[in-house]
């Protein structure tokens, strides 16, 4: 087990390093982080030369990679090319915002998704089952950003017509949130719509998955045995079927969670939330390799960790799994 974890981690680190080389090389070969500055009439030649020197932009790419590696390991990913802004504090801030967004949305999505999935499986082909199926198909066919925009359209127009503000449709904090209950209310007003958008996508997936998993378990031999020996139906579904049906979902949730921590790029862009996703898009628009690389490394690390968590949790819940 320990050997398995160590080996997985080592392999992931190798993949990560190779990936970082490729991405760094790709970005540096194509992008000119100074393009924006060079267009500014106020930027003097001297400034550009200074930045070029400081960021070693005149060196060949492999040398620049080594400089970057040094910055990444000893200096918190260094600073941005233009403005010389430290990257790490920014990343910490946006990660905090993304956590607010993702944790609540995912917890609610798991609860609702599992509930719908189990109910659909127990009442297969019922009206509820068909409705749930239809909605999950709809959820998967809908572009995330469109759903987000439609919600914005709805609540903006409610605000314009009735002068009632139910949710804020953009940004994270317009006014001082205050404390206590006011703070909670403010979070709900600001994050309510993004939560809803993330939840719809996750619920669509989780409920389908849970339904399939539950159906498989309900038709298995040991559930029949449990019924045959006269256990009450409630106990059969809750203790025997449900707990086993949850196992595959654990993997899915862990993987999904790791991916979502990279920031729901689209959702955050639509709602103007200062999270991981928006940070990435902005860095990409500036063509600055340093924040992009930092973002990719942090994201990749989180994905690796959650993949590992998924594997270990699976092995813990299902003792038949062997690591080798």
């Amino acid at each position, binding site marked *: 087990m320990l050997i398995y974890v160590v080996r997985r981690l080592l392999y*992931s680190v190798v*993949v*990560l390093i190779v*990936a970082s080389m490729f*991405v760094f090389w*790709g*970005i540096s070969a*194509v*992008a000119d982080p100074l393009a924006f500055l060079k267009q500014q009439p106020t930027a003097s030649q001297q400034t550009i030369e200074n930045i070029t020197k400081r960021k070693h932009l005149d060196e060949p790419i492999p040398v620049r990679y080594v400089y970057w590696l040094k910055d990444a390991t000893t200096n918190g990913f260094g600073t941005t090319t233009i403005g010389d802004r430290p990257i790490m504090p920014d990343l910490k801030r946006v990660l905090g915002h993304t956590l607010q967004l993702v944790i609540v949305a995912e917890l609610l999505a798991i609860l609702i998704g599992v509930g719908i999935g189990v109910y659909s499986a127990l009442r*297969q*082909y019922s009206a509820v089952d068909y409705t749930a*199926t239809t909605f999950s*198909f*709809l959820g*998967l*066919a*809908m*572009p*995330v*950003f*469109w759903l987000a*925009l*439609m919600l*914005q*359209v709805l609540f*903006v*127009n409610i605000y*314009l017509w009735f002068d009632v503000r139910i949710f804020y*449709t953009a940004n994270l904090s317009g006014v001082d949130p205050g404390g206590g209950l006011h703070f909670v209310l403010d979070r709900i007003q600001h994050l309510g719509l993004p939560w809803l958008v993330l939840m719809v996508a996750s619920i669509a997936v989780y409920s*389908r*998955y849970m*339904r*399939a998993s539950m*159906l*498989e378990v309900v*038709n298995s031999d040991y559930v029949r045995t449990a019924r045959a020996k006269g256990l009450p139906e409630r106990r059969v579904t809750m203790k025997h079927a449900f707990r086993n049906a949850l196992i595959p979902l654990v993997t899915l949730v862990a993987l999904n969670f790791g*991916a979502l921590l*990279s920031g729901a*790029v*689209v959702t955050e*862009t*639509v709602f103007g939330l200062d999270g991981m996703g928006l940070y*990435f*898009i902005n860095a*990409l*628009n500036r*063509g600055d390799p340093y924040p*992009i690389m930092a*973002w*990719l490394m942090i*994201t*990749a690390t989180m*994905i*690796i960790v959650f*993949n590992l968590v998924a594997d270990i949790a699976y092995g813990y819940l299902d003792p038949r799994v062997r690591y080798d």
Partner: protein
Amino acid sequence: MTDRVPAADRLPEEREEIALTAGSVGRPAAATSASGSVAVPERPALEPAGETLTYESGVELEARSQWAYARMRFFRHRLAVASLVVLILVALVGIFAKRVAPYAFDELDLNNITAKPTLDGKHLFGTDLLGRDYLSRVIYGLRTSLWVALVVATLSTAIGTTIGAIAGYYGGAVDNMLMRLTDLFLVLPFLAVLLVLSAFLGHGKPVRVAFIVALLLWTFLARIVRGVFLSLREKEFVEAAKAAGASDLRIIVRHILPNCMGPIVVTMTLFIATAILLEAALSFLGFGIDPPTPALGKLIAEGESQGLESWWLVTFPGLVIVIICLAVNFVGDGLRDALDPTQRRTRA
């Protein structure tokens, strides 16, 4: 996400069909030839496929290929057929955009700026900030998006199948390369890689966007095809073909590939939906198709920038995306049921 339905749950005609499959030995597919030799006392005069076989005992059996059965199963899936009809209609609208659209996509009607949708036939979907007819823009956008999706699906299916087949059949360097490449996606988020690629390879033209999406999407199919090839290359029928002196190419194309047509066709269908959603997201974020070419995702982005009070600008292109993706997913579902009866999902 596959629910297995026990045999008792299947419709009666399906059970008959299964019985029929076992009885008709017209042209068994390579995979079933070993076990499928049902005792037919006398060898019928073999005719080309699709003909009626007459046995001396007087029993008449119509020879049907696997594909004929798949087709039958597909057409019994009502929702899938309806979705296919919808898709064909949408595609026709896209193909004949010039005839169908009431206006050109860049034609200005300056008397009707940001007009609401009306039913009087002038601007069914309303107009945008420049007075351009929105129905026409959506139709042209649909054309672009569909075109991109088809190119993506074709390209990534072709690449994915080829590389998956080579990797699965030969193993070795190609296999190694494929697996390491897909490991990359275990570490980096797919959308992020796609965004980085299109930011730095350049975007804007539909062709470019299609190539960039296809450049990443094929890996999913390659993994699936590789898996099937890995398991099938050890099977007896491949051994038999080898013993008979078939070349590697022949074994791959004639013996193994037909056995994974199911997953390939289904994945290709789903690629269309994925490509439409990805292209829309890319265009929306500004890393996809750029104006003046209208594309569905870009239309939504433009609609957003023109103010959310004009709700129709955001609503209609999105609705079209939802309809296309829903239809594609249902067709994919129907195909999965039809082509892989062992892994049957619930009937919708």
